[in-house]
């Protein structure tokens, strides 16, 4: 298990967003976390990345995450591609990618890899990132995360706000990364795509775990289909 949490909690003042979650991601696994808005998915990742305070147990590569700053977590290969992309709008595409290797990773080989994966980005190397389309910015955000040579890549709603064509591209990219054996933990509102992509999935509601299982099984599960797939 590259990541394991036990009774993981994230609270904002009195409001508990994540109420005691125990999940795991294996060394060679793609895990999805789905659920409605407000289910606590983003808070989960934010807590794991060290962006917000969390309590409870969380072990990454065998060591506890408690007390580690977000910078330290990136240094150890726990990388988050955040919700809303959060790229640096006034910097160029290439500068954005270079910053991905700020704490960890080698720029040269990293850029090669990213350019191979996202030829469209390579073309727009010098363009100001703020002018890219939504889909291109998402590619950039994923690329930037890859520059940190992640040993566990977490993605928060990578398909949010994208046209269907771009959504497909995002999941194709994730599949390609999966094929490179990078462990992935992806949070998604697009349940259908996420469940089809992931090896295993967790379903959250109101900050707690409601169901878990192999992606394919959940995809076929009637209760899941009616609640999250609108079928």
């Amino acid at each position, binding site marked *: 298990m590259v990541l394991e949490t036990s009774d993981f909690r994230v609270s904002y003042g009195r409001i508990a967003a994540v109420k005691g979650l125990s999940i795991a991601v294996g060394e060679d696994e793609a895990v999805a976390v789905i659920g409605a808005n407000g289910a606590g998915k983003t808070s989960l990742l934010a807590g794991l990345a060290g*962006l917000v305070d969390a309590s409870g147990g969380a072990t990454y590569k065998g060591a506890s995450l408690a007390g580690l700053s977000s910078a330290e977590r990136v240094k150890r290969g726990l990388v988050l*591609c955040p919700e809303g992309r*959060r790229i*640096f709008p*006034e910097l160029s595409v290439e500068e954005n990618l270079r*910053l991905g290797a700020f704490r960890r990773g080698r720029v040269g080989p990293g850029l090669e890899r990213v350019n191979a994966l996202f030829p469209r980005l390579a073309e727009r190397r010098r363009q100001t990132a703020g002018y890219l389309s939504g889909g291109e910015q998402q590619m950039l955000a994923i690329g930037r995360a890859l520059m*940190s040579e992640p040993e566990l890549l977490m993605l928060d709603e990578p398909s949010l706000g994208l046209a269907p064509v771009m959504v497909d591209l995002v999941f194709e990219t994730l599949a390609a990364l999966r094929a490179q054996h990078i462990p992935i933990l992806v949070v998604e509102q697009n349940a259908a795509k996420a469940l089809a992509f992931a090896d295993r999935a967790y379903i959250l509601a109101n900050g707690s775990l409601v169901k878990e299982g192999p992606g394919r099984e959940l995809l076929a599960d009637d209760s899941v289909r009616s609640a999250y797939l609108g079928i």
Partner: protein
Amino acid sequence: MSILQAILLGLPQGALYGLMGLGLSLIFGTTGVMNFAQGNSGMLGVFFAWSVLAWTKSLPLAIAAGIAAGALLGVGTDRILMKKVKGLTHGGMLIVTLGLLMAYEGLALIVWGTEPLLFPDLVTLPPLIWTLPPSVNPDGIPLIVAGSDLFILALALVISLLFAAFFKFTKIGLALKARSQDEVGARVVGISVGAVDSLAWGSGVAICVVLGTLVAPKTMVTPGMLTTLQLYGFTAAVFGGFSSLFGAVVGGVILGVLEKLASLGLDALFAATHAANVNSADFQLSVILIVIIATLAIRPTGIFASRFKGKV
């Protein structure tokens, strides 16, 4: 006074405004806090430098000590106060820095008393005197740029270039740029936002101390020595949109020149209308401030502002 002379007077003055604006923009652009205590923070650094000077008689040491003290004050303010202030409304953050403004003024009075203190010129340079040919200068009045003004211009240029280089060529500079553009993005690439913020604060106040030592010979070291300059600094920063350091410096210089030209014009106006007892100096600041209000009304985020920032 000729227009050229006015411009030559306005440039170094504007450089001061620009440096103040740079410090303010640095802190605001990076951390999102408008430091109303900037001037007084620098002032404390100058007082400290004065004490070190009185104690060691060494000007270089005193300046260095003052800058270090200022940097420490900036970092301290960030670490101790600003971290707690993160979740507050704009009004709240403003009030905290205003509280510091008041407290620092009182502190200076308590420690160093009410008597203005003397501070020496950093360097003594001969003035630049330059007489234009009679075809453009019939009265034969020479153009003069004071030695101290030359120094100010040179220093301002050096500092601006240093900052430009810092942001363009160093990793930390890049980190600062990134953090000012997107805090979450900066965190997820492993930038220590806390450290970067402290750096911005420390440098911002340090620049202000430098500024203080430049004006101290003229204004003397008093608790209120940088209050008016801070006002000008805000106006310079408004021009730059608070996120462009380059804009702040350029804005400041433009402001300085505009101010002197406006003064010239007003003096001529008063002379022509025989308005007695009216000194354009009284109006200088008001003219500038009205320009600021107008600028903010027309382009609320400043003239050189970035298109992408949702700041404020």
